[in-house]
């Protein structure tokens, strides 16, 4: 039970009091969970590296925001969710789609603007959806997904089902006005909304310290009575533990919950960002000491749950999946020219 949950709303009331530490409580993973997490995170990592490479080759156009470094967040959240729960996020969305079970081929083909992409090539990296997998985008306007995701939660509430909506946004979006309009309504009506703030420390090039008067973003729901906690977003076990607390809270009808995932993106904001606002040492330290995939890998080896050879085999398997996706994304044709004029409005049959 979320002991911290009821306390979450109160902790900020004691202003100036000691700041609660980042919650590193974990659920112990069994072998199957460790391997699942490893596989899922590695798929995202390899997919994103390939996307970066293909961007460099001019095969992917426009903006391309990579998720490398943040993999534990979506993987841990998804491990605690059930079928029927919805996911919505910003434009840094490739990882979210992969954990929702969307096909790497369809995602990559959307990045290259091809017919077989999830949006038939009309959405691109930032605008992709899968109704079948309950993935509601893929939104290019910072913060818009927070209000939309609150609407997904509203729909669950309206229908009286027990699904929850997982609404991802970044530290940058956490300063948008509509986030607070959404928080207010979510708590006012006790909607089953999990707000996951992926705090990767920089909103594009501006650090949280330079953009936010209170840098503890988990407290942002305090004035609405929404519990929140900071979570070690680099440890997939801590993410899953927090996700279980938050999801149970929302599923039981207690309303929204905020999880501030302390995470880090290794790459720039988008492919064209040289990331001059932070030191190489900072990035290297994160990669060396906190890499989410390396942590699982080390545990698997240390506990004798998998050998180097076992992991290499998984790696090879995943690289094959990613290569296949990349191949498809390059050979699949561009959308038919007639697609320019489809999907604008649905023909009325009144």
């Amino acid at each position, binding site marked *: 039970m979320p002991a911290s949950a009821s306390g979450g709303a109160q902790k900020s009331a004691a202003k100036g009091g000691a700041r609660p530490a980042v919650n590193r409580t974990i659920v112990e993973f069994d072998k199957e969970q460790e391997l699942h997490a490893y596989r899922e995170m590695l798929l995202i990592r390899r997919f994103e*590296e*390939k996307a*970066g*490479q293909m*961007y*460099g*080759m*001019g*095969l992917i*156009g426009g903006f391309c925001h990579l998720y*490398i470094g943040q993999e534990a967040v979506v993987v841990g959240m998804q491990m605690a969710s059930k079928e029927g729960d*919805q996911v*919505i996020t910003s434009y840094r969305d490739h990882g979210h789609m992969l954990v929702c079970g969307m096909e790497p081929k369809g995602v990559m083909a959307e990045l290259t*603007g091809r017919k077989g*992409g*999830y*949006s*038939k*090539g*009309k*959405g691109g990296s930032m605008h992709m*959806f*899968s*109704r079948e997998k309950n993935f*509601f*985008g*893929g*939104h290019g*306007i910072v913060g*818009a997904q*927070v*209000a*939309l995701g*609150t*609407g*997904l939660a*509203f*729909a*669950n509430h*309206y229908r009286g089902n027990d699904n929850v909506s997982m609404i991802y946004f970044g530290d940058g979006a956490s300063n948008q006005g*509509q986030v607070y*309009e*959404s928080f*207010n*309504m979510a708590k*006012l009506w006790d909607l089953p909304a999990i707000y996951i703030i992926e705090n990767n420390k920089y909103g594009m090039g501006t650090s949280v310290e330079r953009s936010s008067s209170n840098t503890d973003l988990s407290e942002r729901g305090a004035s609405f009575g929404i519990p929140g906690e900071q979570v070690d977003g680099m440890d997939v076990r801590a993410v899953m533990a927090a996700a279980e607390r938050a999801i149970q809270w929302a599923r039981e009808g207690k309303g929204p919950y905020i999880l501030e995932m302390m995470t880090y993106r290794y790459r*720039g904001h988008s*492919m*064209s960002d*040289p990331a*001059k606002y932070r030191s190489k040492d900072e990035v290297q330290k994160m990669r060396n000491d906190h890499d989410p995939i390396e942590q699982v890998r080390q545990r698997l080896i240390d506990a004798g749950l998998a050998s180097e050879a076992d992991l290499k085999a998984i790696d090879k398997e995943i690289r094959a999946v990613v290569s296949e996706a990349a191949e498809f994304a390059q050979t699949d044709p*561009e959308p038919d*020219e007639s697609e*320019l*004029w489809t*999907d604008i*409005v*649905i023909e*009325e049959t*009144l």
Partner: protein
Amino acid sequence: MPIQVLMPALSPTMEEGNLAKWVKQEGDAIAIGDVIAEIETDKATMEVEAVEEGTLGKIMVPEGSEGVKVNSLIALILEEGEDASALDAAASAPAVAAPAAASESAPVADAAEPVPAAPVTLDDVQDEPEIPEGTPMTSLTVREALRDAMSEEMRRDDRVFVMGEEVAQYQGAYKITQGMLDEFGSKRVIDTPITEHGFTGLAAGAAMAGLRPIVEFMTFNFAMQAIDHIINSSAKTLYMSGGQITNPIVFRGANGAAARVAAQHSQDYSAWYSQVPGLIVMQPYTAADAKGMLKAAIRSENPVVFLENEILYGHSFDVPDIDDHIVPIGKARIARKGDDVTIISFGIGMTYALQAAEELAKEGINAEVIDLRTLRPLDMDTVLRSVIKTGRCVTVEEGWPQCSISSELGFRIMEQAFDYLDAPVARVTGKDVPMPYAANLEKLALPNVGEVIAAVKAVTYSA
């Protein structure tokens, strides 16, 4: 076969760059994610990371090289088990980068709506009245008609709900939702906080999840706070999702000038919304249309912007007393028949148009008056048929003149019926100023019947 490392593009516009530095040297082991080189563009210095593992076999472009073209071969990585002998063949192989997908010459979009230079041909139209003769009528205000439309649709479909400021307990700021809380309860008639941006986004999200929200804006002036969700979230999502995510939602409320509420509360958004692909835009004049059009809007699978008018709320009209009165989207109405000139308007603009037609009839000028009803898509068939018949056209609206509905009508008539025109199309619009408060200035800022009469006389050369 060694892996080719190509000069990467770092932005959509980069064509070449400088190879500033090799971080890894020939013979160095490389893991995925290792920085192998730094390259410079006119904007930035960026690191190149390895996406394959192996050993850096050969550097093809030395550091310090300038103007290295994107996608040219810069290095070779030897895979596990390969030795240097593999390098020669690889170095001479063509770089394998596929060309960017965009072709040099832009494809001609031939699936577009045709823009004929020649006049259009129109099918013969059956001149049947929309409402059959003898249909029983009840006199209702526009306000009551709107309420009846929502209530009927909410009885019919439990996915439909209405939300907005003061719609429930207060019974509606303009009493449009009067009585609905009692009938449907607070689950489906929902008072929101005063947060247009937030509740519009929430409603758009609920629509994506399959509900059918009606969002009431106290006035559309306040919807400017929410316009991002109306356009970016609702109008564009069907397209951006390749047809997967529909947005069956109605945005409705008072639009345009009321009386003496000045600039921030008096704007007409007809032209703004009608510009956006993905939206349906409607604006009723009569109570019968208010009811039939709103019912159609609620049943539509598309996002509909439904523009009402505060002054019209209290006007009474005959409304067909039938079970399911629906006015189809995209169908204009001929409000008055005539042969001498076509007057096109919509919403409250119809009051000026119809009064002017009455006055003109006394002088022997018989105007045909068209009520557009739907502003997107425009019913050009009805417009063109009339203009081809009369050869003269005046448009009337309360909104500003630049990029207005009138501008669009004038242009399309010029494109599609140029040869039939006996005079340039004239327009009567609101003046090109923010709405003033003073009674005399406000009156000057809005169109009036005299201006419509003068415009008709100008196009019929009967001044």
